[in-house]
């Protein structure tokens, strides 16, 4: 189908964008990459009265990687982030997760920040923002504020941002020392929505023993959720850590829904399997970075 009629504005600054959003009221919606929004329009699941296209706002397409982390601007495409060696050097989860976002044609257009603002619990980057304890910068007519991930995601496709606002960037803190990451997902076809996915971070102490193991999941809860699995493996030497026990611990912590694609029990099974698998990979990477 075609999108229902709407009006369109293409401001050239954040301030102009906020002016239009304010003037147009509740029915106005920000358009960035559009790879989630336009399907919703075409399927008539959403019918905004006005689209405020921020693609002409200069300066929002920058990735800045520093010692503290990676800041990703609102117009950075998935493909741009995937290709950024600087970003992957500071926080390897960014490249690893982005490689799982849909297909190249979607990644060429879709934006990382847009998919976070879309707040789909099956989104890769929502999970990565949560796992890295990241935040977003939100511009409103009252000014700019930093919102942590836990305060940002309220429910499926719902964030705490209401009224006229533009998410300007997302900040992903750097990977700590002596740490490794991994990301994996199961989908019916590569590039499709994940039936279940997991991103993990393992941190070791100076003796190469596990000091922290954390995981975030896709398509498991209503919002991205992070689970601390350290208890199952704490103090264990990284080469012989019982990652399967951490998987079992995770299986007991999650409470997924069943749907057409997978029952709740099957999703729990995938959580256990993906957790054990990714933790082993992340542990091996952490060991290499600790040597």
């Amino acid at each position: 189908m075609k999108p229902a009629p709407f009006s369109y504005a293409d401001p050239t600054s954040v301030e102009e964008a906020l002016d239009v959003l304010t003037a147009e009221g509740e029915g106005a919606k920000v358009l960035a990459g559009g790879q989630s929004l336009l399907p919703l329009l075409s399927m008539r699941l959403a019918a905004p009265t006005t689209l405020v296209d921020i693609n002409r706002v200069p300066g929002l397409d920058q990735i800045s990687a520093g010692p503290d982390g990676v800041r990703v601007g609102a117009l950075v495409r998935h493909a741009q982030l995937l290709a950024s060696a600087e970003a992957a050097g500071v926080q390897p989860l960014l490249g690893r997760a982005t490689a799982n976002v849909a297909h190249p044609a979607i990644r060429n257009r879709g934006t990382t920040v847009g998919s976070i603002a879309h707040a789909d619990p099956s989104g890769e980057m929502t999970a990565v923002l949560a796992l890295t304890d990241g935040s977003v910068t939100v511009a409103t007519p009252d000014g700019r504020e930093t919102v942590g991930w836990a305060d940002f995601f309220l429910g499926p496709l719902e964030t705490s941002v209401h009224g006229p606002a533009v998410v300007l960037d997302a900040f992903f803190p750097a990977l700590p020392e002596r740490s490794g990451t991994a990301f994996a997902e199961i989908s019916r076809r590569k590039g499709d929505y994940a039936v279940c996915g997991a991103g993990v971070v393992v941190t070791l102490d100076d003796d190469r023993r596990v000091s922290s193991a954390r995981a975030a999941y896709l398509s498991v809860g209503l919002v991205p959720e992070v689970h601390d699995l350290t208890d199952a493996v704490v103090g264990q030497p990284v080469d012989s850590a019982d990652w399967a026990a951490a998987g079992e611990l995770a299986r007991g912590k999650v409470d997924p829904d069943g749907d057409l694609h997978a029952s709740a029990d099957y999703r729990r099974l995938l959580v256990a399997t993906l957790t054990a698998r990714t933790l082993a990979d992340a542990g091996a990477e952490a060991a290499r970075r600790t040597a």
Partner: protein
Amino acid sequence: MTEVRTERAISVVVNGVPREATVPVRWLLSDALRHGFGLTGTHVGCEHGVCGACTVLVDGQPTRSCLVLAVQVDGREVTTVEGLSRSDHQGGQVLHPIQEAFRECHALQCGFCTPGFLTTIAAGLDARDPSVEITEEEVDEMVGGNLCRCTGYANIKKACRHAAATMREAATPTEMAISAGDEEAGR
């Protein structure tokens, strides 16, 4: 204050030709190509980004034309399947290697999905180092975002490898001549 509109003038270079049009803002790029510019080579399948049939190149990058508004390509360059071939400077056209390979390998049956495959694979092949042999992973990544319900993909993947080999030959004539010479010297 930024103007809020229901129609907007756009200027876009389509297959090398500058075009001007005033389009309803709710038109998708696929609508503008087919109904505005009469370029019906771009096929519209699912119209929500899943099937890949409508894929075109925006500034050289494969893009779903059903997931971009026509007003968003103002000032950009768009290449459709009609623009993949090159002039032979004698009044004719030379097909892109992937187009030749599709014919050679029988990589299409009904042809509905073909324009999306051709644009996606052509961009993928043009972006890679042609002197390096293509891997199965690269081929899978190139065709993975497009649905074909006729061929079972075997011949499409064969065409990818065939086109990559053709482009490899074209890219390394000297090297191959030298290695052939070495072989002769060795005998």
